[in-house]
């Protein structure tokens, strides 16, 4: 068989499986033309640690940046220009000489504004105890607003036109203020100024074609179980977290072959509200997360045993995976981890019709009441029906073992 040209990396759980560390490893061990981000926004938090101990939480830059690999932010991204500037500053402090030189941005990508962020927090606070587990970054708000007000949604290309930019920013402020009351955000002119600088510092492009000339790594954000259509509604994200967007980008640009790599941890985690059938407070306490703490907006960090039922559902709804990356294998060595291959009530979560949120909500209710049946920790590849390409037993790229190649 011919070798796939690109690698698509998605998380088969609720996020935090270790996509960042796998993308970092891919970029360290083979030629990669660019890392392409194809979903989510500034709320991503992909932690990468270098062998010499430097650490960076990648949010909008691709996790291959410390190897000098450029990042392309595709049109499916929601970009937060101020947060991007702060992230670039940290990358510069870590020794990346000119972070913005490593960045191309699709002109169609949506921009998150301070009003989106303020509206997000206002709505989430109003939910009280029924929070959705939002990060409070306004990413979902940006997506929702763009659907409701397509003519006012700010896109990266608008920063090239000061008049359009100002008109849209005023429109966003007015629309959200009318709906929610006064929002805590700077004046439009100051936001426009920062956004124009963003448009100057990054290279705006009109397609992903230029980066797809060489092998690319597509870095997903969040996880399939948080998918806007496939996750446990309403504890989902406003983003398509499956391979769909990545494959759309590939199809638009010539349809190169790509390896579909699914990432899981040896245990299943969730940050924020929503079903986690295998949740185990003892495990949460035994396996604290160095870079994932209780978030003021997102809520608690939670850990549970390996939920093969949920991960199999993720594999199924994203159309299958060619290979798996299994992270935190060191935790499996040190702790008494178990596997859940079935729930007492069911052994398979049956996917509904795409777009049927009422069905997804029903799944949420079923899962909230489900009881896990445990076995000892066995083969992740067998549990999920796909070969394991790489295992990770530490944070840096040398802490990976490639089992299956030669990609």
């Amino acid at each position, binding site marked *: 068989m011919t070798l796939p040209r690109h690698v698509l990396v998605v998380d088969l759980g609720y996020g935090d499986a270790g996509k960042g560390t796998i993308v970092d490893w891919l970029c360290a061990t083979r030629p990669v033309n660019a890392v392409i981000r194809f979903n989510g926004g*500034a709320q991503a938090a992909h932690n990468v640690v270098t062998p010499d101990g430097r650490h960076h939480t990648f949010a909008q830059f691709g996790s291959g940046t410390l190897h000098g690999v450029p990042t392309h932010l595709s049109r499916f991204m929601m970009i937060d220009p101020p947060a991007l500037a*702060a992230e670039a500053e940290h990358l510069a402090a870590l020794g990346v000489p*000119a972070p913005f030189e490593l960045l191309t941005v699709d002109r169609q990508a949506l921009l998150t504004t301070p009003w989106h962020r303020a509206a997000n927090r206002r709505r989430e606070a109003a939910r009280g105890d029924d929070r959705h587990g939002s990060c409070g970054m306004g990413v979902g708000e940006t997506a929702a607003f763009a659907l409701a007000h397509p003519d006012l949604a700010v896109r990266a290309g608008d920063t090239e036109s000061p008049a359009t930019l100002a008109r849209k920013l005023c429109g966003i402020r007015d629309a959200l203020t009318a709906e929610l009351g006064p929002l805590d955000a700077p004046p439009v002119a100051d936001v426009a100024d920062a956004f124009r600088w963003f448009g100057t510092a990054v290279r705006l492009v009109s397609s992903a074609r230029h980066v797809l000339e060489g092998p690319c790594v597509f870095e997903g954000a969040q996880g399939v179980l948080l998918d806007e259509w496939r996750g446990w509604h309403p504890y989902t994200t406003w983003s398509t977290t499956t391979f769909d967007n990545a494959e759309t980008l590939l199809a638009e640009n010539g349809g190169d072959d790509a390896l579909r790599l699914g990432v899981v941890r040896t245990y299943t985690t969730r*940050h924020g509200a929503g079903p986690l059938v295998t949740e185990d407070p003892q495990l949460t306490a035994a396996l604290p997360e160095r870079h994932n703490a209780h978030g003021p907006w*997102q809520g608690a960090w939670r850990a549970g045993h390996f939920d093969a039922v949920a991960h199999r559902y993720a594999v199924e709804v994203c159309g299958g995976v060619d290979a798996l990356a299994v992270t935190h294998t060191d935790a499996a060595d040190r702790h008494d981890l178990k596997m859940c291959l079935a729930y007492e009530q069911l052994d398979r979560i049956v996917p509904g019709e795409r777009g049927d949120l009422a069905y997804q909500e029903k799944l949420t209710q079923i899962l909230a009441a489900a009881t896990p049946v445990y076995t000892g920790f066995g083969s992740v590849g067998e549990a999920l029906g796909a070969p394991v390409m790489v295992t990770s037993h530490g944070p840096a790229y040398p802490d990976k073992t490639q089992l299956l190649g030669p990609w």
Partner: protein
Amino acid sequence: MGSGRWSTDVYSAAAKYRAATGTSAFAHSDSGARAVHDALNPHGVTVRESRDSDQHPQATPIAILFDVTGSMGSVPRMLQTKLPELFGLLIRKGYCTDPQILFGAIGDATCDKAPLQIGQFESDNRMDDDLGRILLEGGGGGQRTESYELAMYFMARHTALDATARGRRGYLFIIGDEMAYRQVKPAEVRRFIGDTITEPISTEAILAELRRSYDVYFIMPAHAGHTGDPEILAYWRGLLGQHVIELDDLGAVCETIALTVGLGEDATDLDSGLTDLAEAGSSAGATVGKALAPLGSSRGALVRSALPAGFGGDRATPVTRL
């Protein structure tokens, strides 16, 4: 998954972007590179093109070439930080249609490694990329001459402008503080551009050729070492007449270029242009007004004049503006 880790403060973000565009803009040079970036190497280039397209149906070519030797090394950095303003003025104020900007750098072919660097005509921020790739040599021969004539040769023979087919010309700004060599030398042309020419070409002759497709301006800023040097000013005045612009403050160079284009396109007069600058929040009005006063006050004469002094009978047709 979520972070919220990076600051979303718009004020500090604007400052960070500003700082980043200032420091990273010349990453090629600042990283210690000592050779011309491939993208800017004129050797073997057939043409640099300014083309009309669906998106840009009436391209206005604007070439900006600057001396990067000695004290002039700060010009490209200044240009880079002011570029959004230049573009903003050109487009917002309608000074010209569909501006396409090319950047280039001029050194000394007798002693520099990179005496000529020429980017592409770009209408988006890819021109920033070109600017960022320019090698800032910082040397210079010290004999008050740079290889401006070699740059003129390239621009005359290796650029193609759709504007000329529409009866328009492009704008070529040379920003410098020294004189050109007397003639274009075949050995330098072969070495740095790759063409074979049998005879040297006088600087006057190549300039005449260049002016078929460009209005050529020489901007001499005050920060430069030889500002006010009567010999150098007289030299350029002899070649370009009123198209020599003395600029007290390098910081006003983008506004000066924008207004010069606006005047050249008959899209504004000097007074309205200075009002536009003030409205756009520029404090460069006084400097620009002083620099462009000769152009602004003698626009009529410029339109109808025969060739500027120093041209002899090289060109039969008077300079006409559309």
